[in-house]
């Protein structure tokens, strides 16, 4: 099983890395956003505000890169068909899990590269681990929503819509207290908020629970949906 996971992961990563036209603009956009947001927040709120938005935005950049790769590139667009992956001698959960993990790795790499450019040094390993967990958690949540879709290819559009919620219903730009009371539970449960809080020196225990759980559940739901679609 581990060999199968590794083979598909490597296959997918090499495929993704060859798609420079996808990840290079993402890297450029994430870097530019970090520099402009960091500079802007510092102007209005000093260094504390600068680091608040920087650590929040790098978390979202990870999610944005991951979702774009996972649902628009890995799963559906211009690559082997779902039938191909389903026909491999591995459970579909493993195949899809490996493919989605590849997207999460790439999303983490893009965001941490942009973050490294902003910092002028390599990010800490524990920060990378947090970003990776956020990527897994959000990808799992989007996969869970596949249960409500008539066809899996609609996930590409859904991931864009959910990406907006991940970004704005989170503590990327604003602290929790700035949100109306009704929105706070969503903000708190959002893996992006949890990742941003962990990077800002807060607790990571919620993320450690939510990310693997939503990833595993999401894979299960996605695989069931994929099986139906193959029929």
């Amino acid at each position: 099983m581990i060999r199968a996971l590794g083979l598909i992961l490597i296959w997918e990563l090499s495929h993704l890395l060859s798609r420079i036209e996808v990840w290079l603009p993402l890297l450029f956009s994430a870097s530019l956003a970090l520099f402009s947001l960091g500079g802007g927040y510092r102007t209005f709120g000093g260094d504390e505000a600068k680091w608040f938005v920087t650590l929040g935005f790098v978390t979202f950049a990870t999610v944005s890169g991951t979702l774009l790769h996972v649902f628009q590139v890995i799963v559906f667009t211009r690559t082997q068909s779902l039938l191909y992956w389903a026909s491999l001698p591995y459970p579909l959960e493993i195949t899809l899990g490996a493919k989605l993990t590849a997207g999460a790795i790439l999303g983490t790499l893009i965001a941490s590269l942009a973050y490294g450019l902003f910092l002028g040094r390599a990010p800490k390993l524990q920060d990378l681990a947090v970003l990776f967990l956020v990527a897994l958690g959000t990808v799992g949540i989007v996969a869970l929503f596949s249960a409500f879709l008539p066809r899996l290819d609609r996930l590409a559009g859904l991931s864009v819509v959910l990406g907006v919620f991940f970004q704005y219903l989170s503590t990327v730009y604003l602290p929790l207290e700035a949100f109306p009371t009704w929105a706070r539970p969503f903000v708190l449960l959002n893996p992006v908020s949890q990742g941003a809080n962990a990077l800002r020196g807060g607790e990571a225990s919620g993320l450690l629970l939510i990310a693997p759980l939503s990833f595993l559940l999401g894979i299960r739901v996605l695989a069931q949906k994929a099986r139906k679609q193959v029929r």
Partner: protein
Amino acid sequence: MPAPLLEVLNLSLTGTKVQDVSFALSRGEGLVLWGPNGSGKSTLLKTILGLLPPSSGRVMVWGQDPYRNPWVRHKISMAFQERILDPNLRVETALLRHARLIGAPKERFQAILVRLKLPLGKRLFELSGGEHRKTEVAKAFLHEAALYLLDEPTAELDEEGRSQVKELLGEALAAGSSLIVATHDPDIAALLSKRVDLGMAAPKFYRGRVWVEKWPHGLLGELAQLPIRFTPHPSPETLSRLGLPALPVKQMIFYQGSLSEQPGLPNATLPEEAFMENGLLEVEGPSEEHLLEAVRLLLQKGGRIRRLELEGGKS
């Protein structure tokens, strides 16, 4: 008795003509799925691969349900009708990536590329229908499987392509693999000893009986090139002289240069001389002309026959 490689029991698939279908397949056996478009041949193949659950009945591969246990697919390989590989990849890259994923040895990958004369350097979206078909067949045969499921493997192929694919199928059978082929090609159907008819009359197979007096040495290889199947009936004296077991004759089918046995019999090899001296040969082929061609070859090579009977009483 060893368990059959594949057992399909009272299988029904909703929306198809696959209704209460049962068959079993042992190692080295071939089966053709025969039926009109839309009868459910592809759906049946996908069900055997474990991609779809049966509506009723069951499919067991080595005693396991492939839908519930996808790991059993390690021994199965399928050529789909659909274009399922990344269309932007070159043929060799797409196949190499697949070979790596399934752990196929590089030698097998290189051999397949040469055998099927694939259009190397072309991207998959540039391929013609026939080239794509050959690529899909190549993908299936990268895997050294015990059971191959082939969906219309010769559709859109030219004569050369069809004969390359036929050769591959014959070799797979000779190597002890089993085949299930959905096809409308009578030549391919003639290679396979079993048939499942899904709502269309099975192709007409002509039968003949040849009483051989003298068999010319080396004829076997040439007969293997013809789309015919023959069942030898060696004389008991010959079998005893060669020290071979007297297998029930109906259970030995010889085609494409290999002996295929029915389930439950011990492995045995039958040398050419065993059935070629005062033996009887039952021949089947897609046309009368194919049977006569086999007899002509025998006579041209210096063989002698006592009697020839064709279906319908001609002799």
